[in-house]
């Protein structure tokens, strides 16, 4: 597809990995035009602090390893860090708790938004690449409020998907929050549909959560699995 995607996938293949790290996954999403939270990979405290300065406080600090999943539950994520002192404390805690530090640390822009969506792709044995859209974050599994479509998606397909989730009202202007920019959201769905069709090496994608910042969807975490 793009050179950047090939590079990311080839690198994982060389290391015999089928799971891309969060940093790699986010890079892949960015390269197809999905806005992701700004992130910088760092290996030690000095670099972490430098990265935080560049991104601007508050920041998020996460361990970045393809081997480590369920980072939040394991205490490997610290969010909304307001300054260098707090960042250092968080760095020490996460370093101690992490089973694998070889992947480094990801310093990330703190994306604020109360509405969390999920965007995904799965290669179905019958229907081939299918795009998923629904409620994200902690509600993803609990509510299961998601909908699928086989790729390729037309703009109408994407619009219908967005319109048919049960919790669709949260996309409207509610509780003082602006309505979600539906056209941007459609572009995100179409981008995932394209990856599914063009990148046969990818088995599954999660962008979860896809946080609505103001009215714009921004991916905060991503996971890409290879075949």
């Amino acid at each position, binding site marked *: 597809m793009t050179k950047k995607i090939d590079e990311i996938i080839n690198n994982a293949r060389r290391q015999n990995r089928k*799971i891309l790290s969060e940093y790699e996954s986010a890079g892949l999403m960015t390269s197809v035009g999905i806005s992701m939270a700004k992130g910088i990979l760092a290996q030690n405290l000095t670099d972490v602090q430098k990265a935080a300065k560049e991104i601007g406080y508050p920041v998020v600090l996460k361990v970045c390893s393809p081997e480590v*999943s369920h980072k939040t539950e394991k205490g490997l994520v610290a969010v909304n860090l307001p300054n260098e002192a707090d960042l250092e404390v968080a760095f020490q805690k996460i370093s101690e708790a992490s089973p694998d530090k070889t992947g480094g640390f990801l310093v990330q822009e703190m994306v604020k938004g109360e509405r969390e969506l*999920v965007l*995904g*792709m*799965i290669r*179905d*044995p*019958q*229907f*081939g690449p*299918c795009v*998923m859209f*629904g409620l994200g974050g902690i509600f*993803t*599994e609990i509510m*299961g409020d*998601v*909908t*699928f*479509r*086989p790729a390729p998606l037309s703009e*109408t*397909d994407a619009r*219908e*998907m967005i319109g*048919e989730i049960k919790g669709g009202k949260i996309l409207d202007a509610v509780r003082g929050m602006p309505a979600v920019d539906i056209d941007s959201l459609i572009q995100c769905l179409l981008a995932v549909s394209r990856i599914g069709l063009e990148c046969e090496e990818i*088995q*599954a*994608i*999660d962008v*979860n959560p896809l946080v609505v910042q103001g009215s714009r969807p921004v991916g905060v975490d991503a*996971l890409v*699995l290879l075949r």
Partner: protein
Amino acid sequence: MSQQLDLFFKPRSVAIIGASSVRHKAGNDVIRNILANDYSGEIYPVNPKGGEIMGKKVYPAISDLPHGIDLAVIILPAKLNPQAVRDCAAKGIKTMVIAAGGFSEVDKEGELLQAELERAVRETGVRALGPNTSGHVSTPCNFTSSFFPVGRIPRGHISYIAQTGNFATHTMRYISTFENFGVARVVGLGNKIDIDESDVLEYYSSDPETEAIFVYLESLKSPRRFIEIARETTRHKPIIMLKGGATASGSRAAGAHTAALASDDRIIEGALKKAGIVRIYKYSHLILAAKGLSAMPLPRGNRISFLAPSGAMLVTMSDMCQKFWNLEVPTLEEKSRRRLQEISPSYIRMRNPVDIWPSAMVHGMDFAYQEGMEAVLADSNIDAVVSILLINDETGVPDLQRIVDVARKYPQKPVYVAFSAEKKHMEPAKEFLETRGVPTFPLIEDPFEVLSILVQCRKYMDRH
């Protein structure tokens, strides 16, 4: 492809391999069915005993048949089928219906036999339906390969694709004896070694005899192709589908949320929406929605009115319209509302839905139903009307001819009827109304559920 399937649906001649002179045997019923439907092509029964069956000369072997027969219906024990396919192909027969069961649907041995049959089909290049199929129906050609005593099948514009033997058999019998609509084509897919749902759908899609397609499937042989053909078809013809079979929840690539949530059912749901196929969940809707579509046009929208002789029916049906059926029961235009008020006692305030009881008490059933239906049918806010008729000895049966007349006056708007009160009047009323183009439904929810399905068909047609 379309031309090849033409031989199935418009055969000029047919060989019955395994024809039988014994009443109630499949090889006998199939000929009886063909004759009952007034098939005008040649029939060539084949049986080693020779002689005659129902006046037709019996050929002792496939090799004795003349060249150039269009279709073979093979009704032989499973293990004889691969050779029969080769023998028929050697006689220049290009299409076959393979009825026998006893293949992959039973056991390991059956699987091997099916593989052998598949080889015979592939190597000879013939097109085959089945095995394990109850056959097919094509009323424009007065033909059926069904071996179940179906009798004469009424002609119409509904076509079925069914991954079950019951459509070309007892469901046809039910439709032809209990309902007043007809079919164009019916195919029982069987084990799909060659012809599958996508082939048949493609044929129906461009078939001028087929105006709406009903599908029952348990599995899809070529899912992406099916969805692509359906997406094109639903631009101009409704497709309504019941998907049978347990749905496994996906655990295909644990680790990703998307994978964990990707159950077969969710994916199918999405695929059908993409294709514009309206998914139904009740078996009976395969028949009731077909009835509604046969008699009346698709509703233009989801705004309905209905008349009932009971407050409880008005309230509960309105609730269901909103909650489950995606049907609107809108406010009427003032002129229609005024008309309803005129025909009713002044103590009741008339609106949509229409309480027809007070008017019937004052003016009688005939007048109340006719005028009430006319008022709402003339209303530009209304796309379809359901009339629940009160029929019994004491209050009488509303004049059914008047209901037919008022429905005919508004041919763009579906008018559906259901009944309340006395059973003995319902069947004659059903017969009277349906043979004059007004469909009736057994339970009062049914017409609404059918409208709900057809409104969705309309939406898919309009979205392109």
